[in-house]
């Protein structure tokens, strides 16, 4: 019996020691980001710098994933309303928590935040399987994880792929290449708009054949998103920051037309913002464009598309901003 207990104790201690070792590994690589994290954090850093530069000025911040970076021209909005406008479009993959943590830090009384979220962002789950997000919270944004509920922390610790530890070490100690080579090479202007990509390279057929699964399958907004956004909107309200929401630019795929699931998803999103008392600007169709206005994917516009999309947004914003000025 004693031999059995001895083995049980050893087996369990092996298990526990391994978990401690795993946690130490996670701490060890926190400052050694994988290429994906270097890429996404370079965008976040750049956008954060723009926010810091404009911290004490009244400003409009358009926040979302790459649909904003590649779809909105904040300089045009600035010209139209005379308010500093920042394009805070990063990558949808980094998740709402990361996006909003940065904005929360650098906004103040009188600012206007416009949500222009990709449809997939409404499905975000903290313990989901989004590698871009995981790589950030176990890399450059590791402090964000410390505020999570304990169960989420455990689940995320287990979920982070072991192979990424190997990649982190390999990237950090590679004598032939600096990790900085993985930084994002998109050319941003001083207001966060992407300027490097102008032309259409995606074919209409490709766009038609790749309808957004986030739109084509029934949407249930996750509890994590509800919680994150409710907190954020309340905090904005307390600080006299106006919050608006609009639709992301998307390819006007014929498969969306008269599609009941798509219509229901639009309604779900609209109701969600309405329940938060956040005005929804425009109709989904306002941001749905034909193939000639797209650059490389169904979310990224080319320079012609950006012009049209921004103009439409400005028109839709006018009533709201006039009210705001009053």
């Amino acid at each position, binding site marked *: 019996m004693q*031999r059995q207990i*001895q083995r049980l104790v*050893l*087996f*369990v201690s*092996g298990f526990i020691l391994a978990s401690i070792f795993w946690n130490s590994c996670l701490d060890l690589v926190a400052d050694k980001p994988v290429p994906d994290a270097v890429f996404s954090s370079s965008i976040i850093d750049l956008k954060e710098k723009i926010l810091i530069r404009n911290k004490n000025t009244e400003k409009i911040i358009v926040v979302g994933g790459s649909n904003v970076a590649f779809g909105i021209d904040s300089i045009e909005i600035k010209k139209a309303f005379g308010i500093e406008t920042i394009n805070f479009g990063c990558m949808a993959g980094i998740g709402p928590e990361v996006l909003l943590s940065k904005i929360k830090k650098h906004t103040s009384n009188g600012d206007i935040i416009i949500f222009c979220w990709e449809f997939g962002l409404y499905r975000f789950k903290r313990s989901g399987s989004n590698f871009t997000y995981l790589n950030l919270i176990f890399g450059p944004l590791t402090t964000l994880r410390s505020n999570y509920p304990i169960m989420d922390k455990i689940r995320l610790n*287990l979920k982070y792929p072991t192979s990424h530890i190997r990649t982190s070490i390999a990237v950090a100690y590679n004598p032939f290449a600096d990790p900085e080579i993985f930084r994002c090479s998109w050319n941003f202007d001083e207001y966060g708009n992407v300027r490097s990509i102008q032309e259409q390279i995606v074919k209409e057929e490709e766009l038609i054949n790749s309808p957004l699964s986030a739109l084509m399958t029934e949407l249930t907004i996750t509890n994590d998103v509800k919680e994150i956004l409710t907190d954020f909107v309340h905090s904005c309200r307390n600080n006299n920051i106006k919050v608006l929401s609009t639709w992301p630019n998307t390819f006007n795929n014929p498969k969306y037309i008269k599609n009941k699931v798509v219509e229901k998803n639009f309604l779900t999103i609209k109701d969600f913002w309405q329940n938060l008392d956040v005005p929804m600007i425009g109709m989904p169709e306002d941001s749905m464009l034909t193939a000639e206005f797209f650059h490389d994917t169904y979310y990224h516009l080319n320079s012609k598309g950006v012009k049209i999309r921004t103009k439409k947004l400005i028109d839709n914003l006018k009533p709201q901003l006039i009210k705001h000025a009053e």
Partner: protein
Amino acid sequence: MLFHEQSFLFIFLPISLLGIFIINRFVPRFAVWWIVICSFVFYSFHGLKHLPLLIISISINYFLGLVIEKNRFQNFNGNLLIVGIIINLAILAFFKYGDFILSNLSYIGMTPSQKTNIILPLAISFFTFQQIAYLVDLKKGVIRSSCFINYCAFVTFFPQLIAGPIVRYQIIIPQIINQAWRKISKESLWAGLCLLSFGLFKKNYLADGLRPLVDSVFNATNEGTTLSFAEAWIGSSAFGLQIYFDFSAYSEMAIGLGLLFGLKLPINFNSPYKSKNIIEFWRRWHITLSEFLRDYLYKSLGGNRNGVAAGITNVLIVMTLGGLWHGASWTFVAWGCIHGILIGFCHIFRAIKKKKEYRETRSIYNIFGSQLLTLVSVTLAWVFFRSEDFKQAFDISKSMLGLNGFDLPRFLGSYTNVDYLRFHGGLPNQVVNIELIPLYIICVILVLLVPNTLQILKIDTNGNSFITLPSPKVTFIAGVLLFFSVKTSFETLSYEFLYFRF
């Protein structure tokens, strides 16, 4: 539901173990029913629509077995066995080789080009062979039939159902009849748990860890890349390591899970890369398949009773069919054929040695040389096993044999200007993920220099299935490995076992 997935580790396995524990305590004679129910549930998770096929196959074979046994001394009994074998092979041919046969007929212009689109039922190759062996043994009078539920448990026992070992009736049925689960020893439980932990780790970290390295090299040739000598060898040997750890992991998990239920399954894998010749390799790799092919095919063809030449011809036939058993493709046939030829050479060499009364020197060079030669041959053959078609296989083989020249480090560049020596670096195509090289080296060391799990756990590999209590050190390591395996089950990606597709 795979052995390394959460649904198995946290739901199916605890429920099935708890079930057997409770039934054992109160109504032990129903435990076999529980095992069969669990096995059918397990199979259904993989392919519910193929469950009827499994049940039909079991029923046909069981009742045919009863008829064969009852009429053992009748003249028509041999015909009954042939009918049984034909039914089993016909089912296998229809589901596994239908498209292969059609595509070949269409190639020679006998049928229009079309596909049946039949999905391969999981484990069909395994349960077909198992049941053919059952019918043959019944006919020979080696075994006696048992009740239907025992037979179901023998065929479907879930740890071995999907990818072996190919269990013999005479090994498993006595254990079922004796209700082995009533006498589960502490040694069995600990050994089972340790085997499961070791197997899970091997699958998750070693086999699946090498997968990107293998895929990148093999995929590169599809995109027209001419691999360098080093790239081709790294890719194919990495595949050799991947399938080694994948299959040994499955075999260990199967034995481990069996022990948790009190049933001892046969050893199926015993450090094959430490073999000193190809015959020994097949005595260590997929042992139960080799034994099946030897006992039910090779010996039926006459074995080596009619001289060396006839023996070699039989080996070639058996190994070619063995290759075809692995998959419905000519590359598998080629793989089997290569092994047949290698075994043939081995037999010729042995015959010469015997004739000349040559005494083998057991020097370190001799042992190392023969082990290296075996390993190199096996690695070359793996290329055909892994390749999607002959073009890919030949492209990689050419690079491995140096027919595409040699790529050497840049710093040697100034010495010579021969065409087949290039100096753009040893890995010029950048298809080998350097990040995985340390893992590759660790795997090589584990395979060649470290005792295997069965040796570590002191499990007898000579068929006695003697189980000892694992040492405290091993138990501790098993705990460590189990954490990492459980951790991996939370990660997004999980790959099925390579042998699942056979």
